């Protein structure tokens, strides 16, 4: 091992840095095998799980995967489909057949216009990054109220916490409805005070949700939380 190494401690590696010898291990995302060595291809933290060595990138773009639950914004409307901004390099396509309403040809605009926010699921992604969305499913709908904030995609898990523990706690404290999309968009709906607090808490979770001090930091922030029924 030359520079970055595997082990219990998280280690920062840069592209091209040797993580360690291949020696029967599998190479996960953010790394490649070269001359019996595992080489990092991204700037991030080395993670070894079940004999698979991967690099969790510090920065990354959202790359849609089939089954992802996302918060999308209508970017274009055609006669029979909507193009959706999914916070990734490519727009997603929502055909009228996968909308939750019965849509006549040419009437797509009557149901959703540019700028409308929806909760959708990625139905299909092909090798050329063509993305098809669906709104048929439980909880998939147009989001008429609330506000949307964007966080780095690699911080989504921090907002959710183990078994959604952090997310449930935030919801409970601020008495707001909060949904976290896999594409790094967070929808918050509630009172103005609750929404404001939720945004601060999400920012905190995004920045330090992985640190040991997070529980104490969140507890300190909770002291400023609006009391239930304030609004």
């Amino acid at each position: 091992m030359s520079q970055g190494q595997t082990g219990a401690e998280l280690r920062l590696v840069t592209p091209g840095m040797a993580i360690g010898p291949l020696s029967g291990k599998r190479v996960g995302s953010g790394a490649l095998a070269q001359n019996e060595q595992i080489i990092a291809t991204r700037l991030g933290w080395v993670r070894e799980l079940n004999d698979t060595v991967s690099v969790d990138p510090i920065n990354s773009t959202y790359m849609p995967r089939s089954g992802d639950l996302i918060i999308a914004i209508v970017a274009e409307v055609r006669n029979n489909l909507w193009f959706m901004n999914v916070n990734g390099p490519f727009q997603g396509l929502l055909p009228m057949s996968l909308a939750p309403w019965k849509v006549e040809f040419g009437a797509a605009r009557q149901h959703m216009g540019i700028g409308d926010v929806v909760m959708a699921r990625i139905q299909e992604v092909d090798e050329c990054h063509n993305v098809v969305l669906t709104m048929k499913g439980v909880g998939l709908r147009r989001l008429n109220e609330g506000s949307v904030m964007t966080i780095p995609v690699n911080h989504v898990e921090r907002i959710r916490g183990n078994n959604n523990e952090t997310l449930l706690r935030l919801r409970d404290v601020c008495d707001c409805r909060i949904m976290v999309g896999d594409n790094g968009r967070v929808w918050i709906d509630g009172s103005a005070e609750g929404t404001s607090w939720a945004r601060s808490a999400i920012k905190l979770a995004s920045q330090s949700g992985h640190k040991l001090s997070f529980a104490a930091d969140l507890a300190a922030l909770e002291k400023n939380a609006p009391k239930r029924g304030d609004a």
Partner: protein
Amino acid sequence: MGGYGDVKLLREDGLRLDGRKIDEMRPIEIEAGYLPAADGSAWVKHGLNVAVAAVYGPMEAHPRKIQRQDRCVIDVRYNMAPFSTSDRIRPGYNRRSREISKVTAEALESVVICERYPRSKIRVEIEILSAEAGTRCVGITAAAVALADAGIPMRDLLVGVASGKVEDTVVLDLDKAEDNYGQADLPVGILPNTGEIAFLQMDGDLSPDEFNLAMEYNFKAAAEIHDIMVDALKRRYEGGEN
């Protein structure tokens, strides 16, 4: 001998006009994440050269005719600010900046794992704020740090470095006088971990022995610059996982 005749570029004591040894680089400072609005960015000061690089994307490639179905394209725009030299440069693209943008894009395409992003484009903007000599190398180094900062997968960190010949002596990292009045200039893009060369240009004449010596200097300097690049990236994210 070539060059410009009686211009003295080496002192009696064997050092260069700025006091450097023949195999000594100008001082380098690098800062990653310099521009908050960019997906990735870097600031590099190499001697009197100052370059800022910003990376945006991957994004859908437009116009559609530039899209590749199996890979992304890297769109590099190298530009020297009008105030970067003592003689004001006319703003906008010129033949030189077009050429440097092209060779930089080709060098970066050999390092970035482009197959990961079909039909996409990664935009790299390199702005030279102050120019002494060797701005294309500084631009490449800045672009590599900015790409890493943006989380773009790469096989290695590409390092831009140059050697040349003055007064029949091979020297590392030419300054402005050496670049203007020297006999040869050899800028290269090196992948330090694998020792591969991603781009190489040569202006002037070098014998095979001089070429080998210049490349030896370049590889040695690339290893030093690479350490500074890694340090800049680590410094940005030190203090825990970000």
